[in-house]
């Protein structure tokens, strides 16, 4: 009986909830150390869970002991564990980063971040459509709160816009869930899967459409991207990092989940459309990133572009699963790299006291480690070897070629070049000589190292794709 206490799965949800609430209890600005210790434990738990899944297949946890249709089941398969690992791996360095970043004014950052992470873990582990809705809500509210954190009018405005989009999207998703419940009388994915016939009733179509639309809006896929740049570009650096690296991935994960496990028949029909939107996102996002002079906006627009890659997966999904792996690897690579990039940008802005590209002149000399981190993260975003981003790109091109769909190859390659264009736009600015009158603030070393660790992870992961693939194969359809 007591070995349930040793099961890492429930603790991955309980622990972040607990430290979030404790951080709230400790008061504004407190809780950094608690969070770091707890996150280290979470990373450890996620690793244990990963080994369990790798060795003996998907793990379930029956909450309340009731079992699927009546109660809620938690499920950890390869896909969810990969996302869980990403979450903890991104969160821990960012926590170290944030501790230094918020040396004075953390406000409610720690509880909000704790709830955000709890929501992510719960989302990745849930196998119940309604419970997923609850986790989405938790996630959105935490994210909105984080965006508003500084309390500046622009931040609050961006947060409100994000909130509206998020609530509408959640509403659409919920409507979809309600319809599914109306048709099949259950919201458990495992129970639903065998019920899905080949001739779905209209309600199911509508349901799939509503859920998909809601999730796309949350993922900020073009043309739903409009809320993202102000929200991610205006928030505090650790917040932007968390949001870009993890939060938008959560809804993508959900789209993937639904496509694979709930609506396999309907997905094929919308897949080309999703791919086209993804391609548009890549082009438009990159173009906007190239045009902006605001360094953080640039990174935010880059997120819009990079999210596009994730949706190229759908037209290539069947039948070999190569593209699925590409999508997950891209999500992970981008997660690590974008967290690193936002963290690095935070350091750069702190060091120069400016937020424009022009202000960057000379940083190559002052904060070389950070710039190096930015460059490494850039390598991943461009999809250059040996990074994880390259693996994703390789898998995508491979899948596209094996389907004979040449167009996507062009998009992937072109997107990589565009990414190179905006990444080097920053780098070359950093290599310029600093003007005489520029002044640099000293930056805590822990921030520089956190950014570097994340960036390095995104590159090193590119050398360890085999393990990741083995993990993803667990429980894959």
């Amino acid at each position, binding site marked *: 009986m007591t070995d349930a206490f040793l099961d890492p799965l429930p603790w991955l949800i309980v622990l972040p909830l607990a430290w979030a609430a404790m951080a709230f209890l400790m008061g504004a600005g407190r809780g950094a150390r608690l969070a770091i210790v707890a996150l280290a434990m979470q990373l450890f738990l996620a690793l244990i869970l990963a080994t369990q899944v790798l060795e003996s297949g998907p793990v379930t946890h029956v909450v309340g002991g009731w079992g699927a249709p009546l109660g809620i089941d938690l499920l950890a398969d390869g896909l969810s564990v990969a996302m869980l690992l990403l979450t903890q791996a991104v969160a821990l360095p960012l926590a170290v980063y944030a501790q230094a970043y918020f040396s004075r004014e953390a406000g409610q950052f720690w509880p909000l971040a704790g709830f955000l992470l709890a929501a992510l873990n719960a989302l990745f582990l849930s196998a119940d459509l309604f419970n997923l809705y609850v986790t989405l809500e938790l996630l959105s509210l935490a994210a909105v709160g984080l965006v508003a954190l500084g309390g500046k009018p622009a931040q609050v405005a961006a947060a409100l816009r994000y909130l509206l989009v998020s609530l509408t999207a959640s509403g659409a998703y919920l409507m979809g869930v309600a319809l599914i419940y109306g048709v099949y009388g259950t919201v458990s994915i495992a129970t639903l899967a065998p019920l899905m016939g080949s001739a779905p009733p209209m309600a199911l179509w509508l349901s799939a459409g509503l859920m998909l639309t809601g999730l796309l809006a949350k993922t900020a896929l073009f043309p739903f991207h409009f809320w993202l740049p102000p929200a991610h570009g205006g928030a505090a650096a650790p917040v932007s990092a968390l949001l870009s690296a993890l939060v938008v991935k959560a809804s993508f994960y959900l789209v993937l989940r639904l496509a694979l496990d709930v609506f396999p028949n309907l997905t094929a029909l919308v897949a080309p459309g999703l791919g086209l939107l993804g391609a548009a996102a890549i082009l438009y996002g990159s173009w906007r990133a190239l045009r902006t002079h605001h360094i953080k906006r640039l990174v935010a627009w880059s997120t819009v572009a990079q999210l596009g890659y994730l949706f190229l997966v759908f037209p290539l999904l069947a039948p070999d699963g190569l593209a699925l792996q590409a999508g997950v690897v891209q999500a992970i690579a981008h997660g690590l790299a974008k967290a690193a990039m936002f963290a690095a940008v935070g350091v750069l802005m702190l060091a120069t006291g400016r937020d424009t590209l022009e202000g960057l002149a000379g940083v190559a000399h002052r904060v070389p480690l950070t710039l190096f981190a930015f460059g490494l993260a850039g390598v991943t975003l*461009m999809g250059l*070897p040996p990074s994880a981003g390259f693996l994703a790109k390789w*898998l995508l091109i491979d899948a596209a*070629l094996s389907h004979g769909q040449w167009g996507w190859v062009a998009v992937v390659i072109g997107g990589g070049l565009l990414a190179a264009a905006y990444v*080097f736009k920053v780098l070359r600015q950093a290599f310029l000589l600093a003007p005489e009158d520029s002044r640099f603030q000293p930056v805590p070393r822990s921030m520089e190292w956190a950014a570097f660790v994340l960036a390095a992870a995104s590159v090193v992961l590119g050398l360890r*794709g085999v393990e990741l*693939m083995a993990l993803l194969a667990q429980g894959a359809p």
Partner: protein
Amino acid sequence: MTLNEALPLAVLASSLLPGLVIFALPEHWVGTRTTLNLFGAFAKLALVGLLLAGVSAGENYGFRHEVLPGLELVFKADALALLFMTLSTVLWLFTTLYAIGYLEGAPHRSRFFGFFSLCVTATMGIAMAGNLFTFFVFYELLTLATFPLVVHRGTPQAMKGGTVYLAYTLGGGALLLTGIVWLYGLTGAADFAHGGYLAVLGSEKAGQLQWVFFLLIAGVGVKTALVPLHGWLPQAMVAPAPVSALLHAVAVVKAGAFGVVRIVYEVYGVEFAQSLDLLAPLAVAAAITIVWGSFRALFQDDLKKRLAYSTVSQVSYIVLGVALFGPIGTIGGLVHLVHQGIMKITLFFCAGNYAEALGIHKVSEINGAGRRMPLTTAAFTIAALGMMGVPLTAGAVSKAWLMDGARAADMGWVTGVLWTSSVFNAAYFLPILWRAWMRPAPAVWPEEHIPAKGRRETAWLLLLPPLITAAAVLVAGVFAEAGWSPLSWAELIAGREYLR
């Protein structure tokens, strides 16, 4: 991990690790940095020596690491790899020495030497790559590692050059990647193999394979500076002299040329390539590049730009040699890989010395430099004569073999191309020599840094490397038939390619 697996990794590590440490070093730790640099260079030299001995004795050195299921990083140190590795290692040592002297007191040296080491690591990786994927990984790494070197000075002009460089090389990388993935789709994972591995596909896929060939060659052709993909090379001249030396003699253009060798010989196989009618167009492209590069060089007043166009022309000798069907041409191309390296590095060292000591940047400013800097000018002269193909120099050896190869392959027009190029070579090098030795020196040099009173014409760290490499040009030409010469090594490789 056996020793034979560890050695290739050790070769990589001998420049990678010092490079990473150097990044972290504070700017003023000159001594530590120099020690690390030299330690890495000598360690690599020793390791490569070990490999050379081993390969001559028939050992196989290799290491594999699976990145994705069916996608492996493969390193192997075979004879061809070692040809390139030896060249790079030796020249790296000299370039490092030169750079230490050249950059004395300059800012951002930790960054410079860090990327410098990364750059050589990438070159080693390219040399040892055992399949196209591995080749691509290091090919892109090379792009990334050289960019900061090109823009090192941080001036707007440097930025412009760097941007152009990136645009070309990343674009080339994209083409290369497409070709590689396409090929993987056709064959699955496959290692480089003597005689190629595509022949089994037969002629059914000929159309696809021709497209792939085009993509691959275009991809590596950017770094090789094949016309019309050469536009970045003259722009990249804004880099400091050691970087230019590295780019032109060891790293970037050579990586491209080396890629062409691997693709033609060990992916397609020269016979299969011939059967797909791929070699003749390649030869034509190389010929055009040779003539066009030489022609453009005639009109450059900027010394480094003239040398740059010279490189455009000379590197395609290698490609031309590869495109000539038959062992003799192959030997000519391969040996030129080495010969062009030592000649061109000498020229750039000297150009750097002129600029550093006297502020001479242009051909028109070089009047009388021979009397002011006799040793430098002597080295320059030897290398220039080599480029022209004057007998007893390394250049003469390559040209001779190439011409023989062309005749053997029934491509007589190639001889014409080579002669034309040689005439152009003479036309753009001889005026420089004449000006340097014969014309009187001006009253004031453009920007004199080294006072004339001293015994040496410039710092010994700047002087020694060009003298040694110039000597090597002569040695490689005079002792071409010796067993340890580059020519013999090239013959060994060509023998393995054609006489399987």
